[in-house]
């Protein structure tokens, strides 16, 4: 069976996804689901960036919660302490985090495997300590209060519905840029680095430059998510940006399917929403959650999205096999 070209184009998926996001809110029976979707969107933005780094380029980061936190704190501090408008906070957060990621990335990405994991882990812990100890700026362990509501050029995003659409636009923009990057010369270079660093370099790929470049891009995505988070919550505290959240981000990408942008969104949706639905298990919530994750990895080692794809392909194959058998 031949799949039509338009359906296989990544932009078809993108348009369909945009339409679903746009028309979803009226179907939500509960205001609370809108709140959940906002968090899913924010997490998905970080997960997409982390997937570019981990799934496509093969470089691990156990410190991405720190970039998320830096984005949130930079705009938060500017808003709460200096009354800067959110849009100015966004610019400073993106540029600041980008520069920091560049400086961190140059020495760190020379490391491989476990050493890279340890270095990024250490970075994440250090940043969290700064959040806790710089009391005069960050409000210390109890958190930063007084962050302004989101307004962009005078327009106030003063309801969950408006905020939902702001997050959707940010997510779709991130998604579109990422789809373009992975389907380009840059994307090929990143996947080539994942495949063989030495072969990439003898073909003229500047391996360290691309590694640092994608590290910066993924950090900037996380900072964008932090900005959205900060002005939605109007309160940030260090505990939201710790090691456990970094691990959760990696889990989103792995469970979703490494090296698939759609998988990253899927993983973010699953890992953000599942704990909410597992509340019914009360004390056993974490146990059930862990059991589900292990089950997925055992039966779908390539992640949920690819696992489902494989299943669908198998079903189609067995169907078309039946057809060919019938023909004389």
């Amino acid at each position, binding site marked *: 069976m031949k799949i039509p070209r338009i359906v296989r184009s990544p932009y078809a998926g993108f348009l369909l996804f945009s339409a679903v996001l746009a028309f979803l809110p009226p179907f939500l029976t509960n205001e609370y689901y809108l709140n959940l979707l906002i968090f899913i969107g924010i997490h998905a933005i970080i997960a997409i960036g982390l997937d570019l780094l981990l799934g496509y380029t093969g470089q691990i980061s156990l410190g991405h919660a720190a970039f998320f936190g830096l984005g949130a704190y930079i705009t938060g501090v500017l808003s709460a302490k200096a009354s800067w408008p959110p849009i100015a906070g966004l610019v400073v957060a993106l540029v600041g985090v980008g520069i920091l990621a560049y400086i961190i990335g140059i020495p760190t990405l020379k490391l491989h495997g476990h050493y890279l994991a340890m270095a990024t882990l250490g970075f994440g812990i250090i940043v969290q300590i700064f959040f806790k100890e710089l009391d005069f700026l960050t409000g210390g362990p109890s958190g930063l209060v007084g962050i302004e509501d989101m307004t962009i050029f005078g327009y106030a995003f003063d309801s969950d519905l408006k905020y939902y659409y702001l997050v959707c636009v940010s997510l779709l923009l991130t998604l579109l840029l990422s789809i373009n990057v992975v389907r380009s*010369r840059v994307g090929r270079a990143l996947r080539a680095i994942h495949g063989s660093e030495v072969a990439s*370099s003898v073909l003229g*790929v500047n391996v360290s430059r691309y590694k640092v470049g994608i590290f910066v891009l993924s950090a900037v995505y996380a900072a964008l998510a932090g900005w959205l988070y900060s002005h939605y919550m109007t309160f940030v505290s260090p505990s939201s940006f710790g090691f456990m959240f970094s691990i959760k981000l990696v889990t989103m990408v792995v469970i979703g399917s490494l090296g698939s942008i759609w998988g990253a969104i899927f993983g973010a949706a699953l890992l953000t929403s599942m704990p909410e639905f597992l509340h019914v298990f009360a004390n056993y919530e974490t146990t059930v959650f862990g059991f589900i994750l292990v089950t997925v990895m055992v039966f779908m080692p390539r992640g949920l999205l690819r696992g489902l794809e494989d299943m669908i392909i198998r079903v189609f194959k067995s169907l078309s096999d039946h057809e060919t058998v019938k023909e004389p």
Partner: protein
Amino acid sequence: MSHTIVLNTVGLSKDFGGVKALRELDLEVRERLIQAVIGPNGAGKTTLFNVISGVIAPTGGTVFFKGEEITDLPTHRIAHRGLTRTFQNLQLFADMTVLENVMVGMHHKSRGGFFASAIKAPWVIAEERRVRDESMEWLRFVGMEEHSATVAGSLPFGNQRILELARGLASRPELLMLDEPAAGLNTRETQDLAQLIIRIKESGVTVLLVEHDMELVMSVSDHVTVIDQGHKIAEGEPDSVRNDENVLKAYLGEE
């Protein structure tokens, strides 16, 4: 001879701890010829390739490419100058398609960066088309165009070797170094490979070849250098090397 020197090494040495893999090796490679480097196992052939291509740094000595020193250049810069290689133990991008592998070969013959790619600038779209078309041409050159959409890791071994060659060619090198291209190939595939190597030479590319298959070496090479324990022990035309006393000693041992 009208062929000018394209690559030469002067006093090239490489120690791995106490092991001297290369000792004061002088090598000259002349343009538009096929030159083979042969020698017993452990002679330092692969080390030589790794040092020339910038994968590892030499302990001493210099490498000149087209008259300019490239000894301390990073690998990707050496590639930009027009020198690339294949690997004895294949280094394909196994999860990418055959065509994509070749397209990576054209990396430094194209320019699209992060920003231009992310916003899909019109010139990037045009460049992508050019890269795709030219890469297909290279697949046609090696006779693999029907495999273009196959995932590289699932190709038969012989095709994987050829794909690595096509990928190297796509980077339009002046010097292509082949590290045991016939290893693991059957007789038929080796014959096809010999034809391909000769066609590569005819297209104007210089070939430096490390190979154990003597039949292949003798049939395609214009010039043969024999090394043993990091030393050059003989060189010349295939026939003269074949009967060289030192070479026989190195391969068969002393009487």
